[in-house]
């Protein structure tokens, strides 16, 4: 039911209330967004500011052939898929676990949630030293067990970054999924008990389907967030070894702030946004086709 304004109020009060929000977002979001779009069609280099030329789509077309760009996109993609799937899996498991806890539940939950509140750059640097082959504590203990691992080698660097993200952000998935679990209605579960379903059958056929909307939202939010990964790369690998861990944001940073090629940087980020939007919309669209209750 849609409320209406009172007789004494301006009939468009509802829109007037939006004005502050609109103003702020216009200034800090819309304008820069538009400006960025504008720049992406120009050859805008901070090192030669008097030589800004309109180049049409050439920034974009250049990118389509730029291997390092596509490498960073694929790295980011691998990272997002890897990290989010592990986090969803662990988050779900932990949420179920928490539900079964009795006495210390709140305390344990509080402790388990702490990683996501640390500033990511601190987390990155922390793991950088924990996993360092020469002086890190973890490789030390692992070699005592006979396992020799170089966490930041060519083969493992991307995986290590994924695992760091998992350490920090699984709590986020845990939080969202737990919230979802707690808000599920009790009745179908009691009915399932009486109907004779085992715990596993109930989990697969009642819990998971009912949890689906929450999981989708959680995955989308976490996925989009994960694609913005920057701090871990900056703190530890700077994109290396080689360009094995160069993620898209880092690539843009390099382009714009190391090489000062703003136009290219802008174009890169727009392609990224397009990809993101497509991904998000296709996930939502695809899921709308499944039963919406």
């Amino acid at each position, binding site marked *: 039911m849609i409320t209406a304004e009172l007789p004494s109020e301006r009939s468009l009060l509802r829109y007037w209330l939006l004005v502050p929000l609109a103003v702020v977002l216009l200034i800090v979001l819309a304008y820069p967004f538009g400006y960025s779009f504008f720049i992406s069609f120009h050859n805008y280099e901070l090192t030669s500011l008097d030589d800004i030329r309109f180049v049409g789509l050439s920034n974009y077309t250049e990118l389509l052939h730029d291997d390092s760009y596509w490498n960073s996109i694929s790295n980011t993609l691998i990272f997002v898929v890897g990290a989010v799937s592990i986090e969803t899996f662990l988050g779900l498991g932990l949420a179920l676990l928490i539900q079964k806890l009795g006495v210390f539940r709140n305390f344990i939950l509080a402790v388990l949630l702490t990683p996501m509140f640390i500033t990511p750059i601190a987390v990155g640097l922390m793991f950088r030293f924990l996993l360092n082959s020469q002086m890190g504590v973890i490789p030390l203990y692992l070699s005592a067990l006979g396992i020799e691992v170089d966490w930041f080698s060519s083969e493992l660097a991307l995986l290590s970054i994924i695992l760091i993200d998992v350490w920090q952000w699984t709590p986020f998935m845990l939080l969202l999924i737990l919230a979802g679990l707690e808000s599920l209605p009790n009745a179908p579960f009691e009915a399932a008990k009486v109907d004779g379903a085992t715990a596993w059958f109930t989990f697969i056929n009642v819990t998971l389907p009912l949890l689906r909307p929450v999981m989708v939202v959680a995955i989308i939010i976490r996925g989009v967030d994960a694609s913005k990964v920057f701090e871990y790369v900056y703190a530890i690998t700077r994109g290396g070894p080689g360009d094995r861990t160069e993620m898209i944001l880092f690539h843009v940073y390099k382009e714009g702030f190391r090489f000062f090629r703003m136009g290219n940087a802008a174009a890169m*980020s727009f392609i990224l946004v397009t990809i993101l939007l497509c991904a998000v919309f296709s996930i939502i669209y695809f899921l709308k086709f499944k039963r919406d209750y």
Partner: protein
Amino acid sequence: MQKLGLNVIVYSLTTIALFYVCFPFAWLMMTSVKPSSLIFRPDVLIFTPRMDSWIAVLFNSGVPGYALNSIIVGVVTVIISIGVGCPAAYSFSRFKTGGNKLRLVILSAEMIPPAILIVPLFLLAYKFRILDSIWALIAAHTTFIVPIITWFLIGFFEEVPKELEEQAMVDGLTRLKAFLWVVFPNIRPGLAAAAVFGFILSWNDTFYALMLTGGHSKTLPVAIAGYWTFRGVEISKMAVAMLLSVIPALTAMVFVQKHFIRGLGSQGIKG
């Protein structure tokens, strides 16, 4: 008997999870008090703690100043967000302005990668001479914190039945008074949680801070990164700075947790 077995599994898994989470913290704390000669000796666990790094960071460095910058940026951003978000959220919740679509658009604003905005924000800050000042950073932070706080506020407003204000308005209050006296008190705890969350988001941001600040306007995350100098890394001091940056987040979280779960839960399902 079954119950016992289940409990054992649950608690041992939980212990593993706890260990997994606490281990890095323990390392941080240990590192912050390790004498510098032992830093590169990870095998040494027993030693006499030295507070040198703590003293250096707390009293002899710019870190407290940078922390202050972080605080200011966070507080101002949150204030702006709430100031702007409240009327908007009220409009979305009570008048259903724009339907579900507009609300999703607001949320999607949060999803914009910083990459898109950093370039123009940087250039604009340069033009308006506010580069290396907290204002540029505040502007950048509002881009993602305003939408999130507005989103949360919508959820909180929806939890207060509009019949309450309608009753108040029938009883003689103006809409504004009804809002202040009836709706607002009911959302206070949730609002506090959202404010804290927004503050933490701002506190933790590194990307914008790196690009838009640099000198005395540095924020804490940038300062932490700064310990990685060309001379090598001053790990112990960095550990101290990291622990400092963790404190507000942890304290906040203790208070915020409950409301968070409720707010997220209801939004998650509707989302």
